[in-house]
């Protein structure tokens, strides 16, 4: 709680916001594991975005004379059971995995945030109804829920995204609700109420800014489980379909050679592992930096 001498303070709102941002970034930079996660994520996203330029082979081109090859100069990570280049497929698979993970986050975070804030602010029967619905979703293991949904709608990436979103929003709603219930009793919210602000305005302008940071941190942590769910659905043949190079699907088709040619399964497996860890590290760091209680 240091009071800065008046003369040193920022002179415009933009300057003040920049200063806050710099403080946040410098806090994040001092967090070694978060920075490691961030670097990994940048590499993974970069690899996914530039996959067409970074890949060395056509990902669908089969070469049955060269199947299950060990890593070599021609095929950096070897080839799979149909002689396709694993390195190239891994890069393109990253696109699908990150596409699923990001879209799921974009769908589930706002739903969770709105449900949680409405529930926490209004309380009473609104809270009871919304929380019982949330609990019904929470009661199912997320993969089972996603499985049931995909089984009903048919396997595809889009359905996998919807299915995983269904399983992802309830914990976010619970988080936003808890945060809202804590904030709504505070004096600064009482002060806005005394200015005649509507419930809507209070939620959007005053409560959401308190909930959003912890939701962002939570969603980043959830990314790991989203990626695992997506890979799980792909593995079970209910997500991305062959010959799509989705990591779960790759792992699934490689599992019959896991004892004889381990590297075929290891490549997508390690990719899933590293991506999940990277999201987890960044999420942990973000939680430390963004959570107001850590100030």
């Amino acid at each position: 709680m240091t009071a800065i001498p008046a003369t040193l303070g920022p002179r415009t709102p933009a300057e003040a916001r920049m200063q806050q941002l710099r403080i946040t970034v410098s806090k994040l930079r001092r967090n070694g594991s978060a920075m490691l996660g961030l670097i990994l994520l940048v590499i993974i996203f970069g690899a996914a975005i530039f996959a067409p330029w970074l890949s060395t082979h056509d990902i669908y081109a089969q070469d049955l004379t060269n199947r299950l090859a060990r890593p070599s100069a021609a095929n950096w990570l070897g080839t799979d059971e149909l002689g396709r280049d694993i390195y190239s497929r891994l890069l393109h698979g990253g696109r699908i995995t990150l596409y699923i993970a990001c879209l799921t986050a974009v769908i589930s975070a706002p739903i969770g945030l709105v449900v949680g804030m409405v529930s926490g602010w209004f309380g009473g029967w609104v809270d009871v109804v919304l929380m019982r619905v949330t609990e019904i979703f929470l009661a199912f293991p997320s993969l089972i829920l996603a499985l049931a949904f995909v089984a009903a709608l048919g396997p595809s990436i889009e359905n996998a995204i919807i299915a995983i979103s269904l399983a992802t929003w309830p914990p976010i709603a619970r988080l936003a609700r808890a945060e809202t219930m804590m904030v709504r009793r505070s004096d600064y919210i009482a002060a806005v109420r005394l200015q005649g602000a509507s419930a809507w305005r209070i939620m959007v302008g005053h409560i959401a800014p308190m909930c959003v940071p912890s939701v962002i941190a939570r969603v980043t942590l959830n990314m790991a489980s989203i990626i695992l769910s997506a890979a799980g659905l792909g593995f079970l043949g209910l997500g991305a379909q062959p010959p799509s190079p989705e990591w779960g699907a790759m792992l699934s088709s490689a599992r019959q050679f896991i004892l004889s040619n381990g590297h075929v399964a290891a490549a997508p497996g390690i990719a899933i592992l590293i991506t999940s860890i990277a999201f987890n590290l960044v999420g942990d760091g973000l939680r430390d930096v963004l959570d107001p209680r850590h100030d």
Partner: protein
Amino acid sequence: MRDTVLEAVDLTISFNDGAVTAVKGAKFRIERGESYGLIGESGCGKSTILRAVAGLNTDYDGSILFEGRELPERRRKEHFRAMQMVFQDPYGSLHPRKMVQAVLAEPVRLMGLGDEQRRIDEVLRNVGLGPEFRFRYPHELSGGQRQRIAIARALIVEPKVLLLDEPTSALDVSVQAEILNLLTRLRRELGLTYLMVSHDIAVIAHMCDRVAIMQHGRILEEITAPDVRAGRVAEDYTREFLAASAPAITA
């Protein structure tokens, strides 16, 4: 002629569907320009009265009259504008993620007053802070500076009555005096009426013209500031309460 600004008649406030009665039949009248104190030990219901008067808790029996007219359960903007509140804890009463400029602009916009920047600069000057404080966040301010911002937020809508909920009890002793002097000066310059809650008899004796002593949700008696200093009281409880804080008054 008496010019009553704020009046409470048989104010009774219960919580948990009547299981706990926090305030029982409270009654007081506050004249224009007066500073009226509510004092008592913690849990006696003084803050509850303040929150009901402010309109934060509309679940009460009896009536609260502003300038002779009864306040409705659902307050309208003009009611909010006429009465503003300063909270006890300046660390909890400012939004941690909003800079001073945004905190002060919000009430101007909500009340549709216009002329935002001029009002903000003026109110900051009034509470003794320069315009450079506009772009600060609460965590960059000291406790006293925060409380000044909270007072500025209340004053920016030009209220007639200021409800003060122990405005200095969370501050350092040296800062307490600054804030109390600021409040005294503002009342004189802006012609404000204060309803002030405190458990600190020294603060009340310094700030208020008349004081109501509360115990267990009831107002026991009403005495003037000179009576407080001289110890002229009717109730035993008041005498005990004053005796317990006697060094504070005579000092």
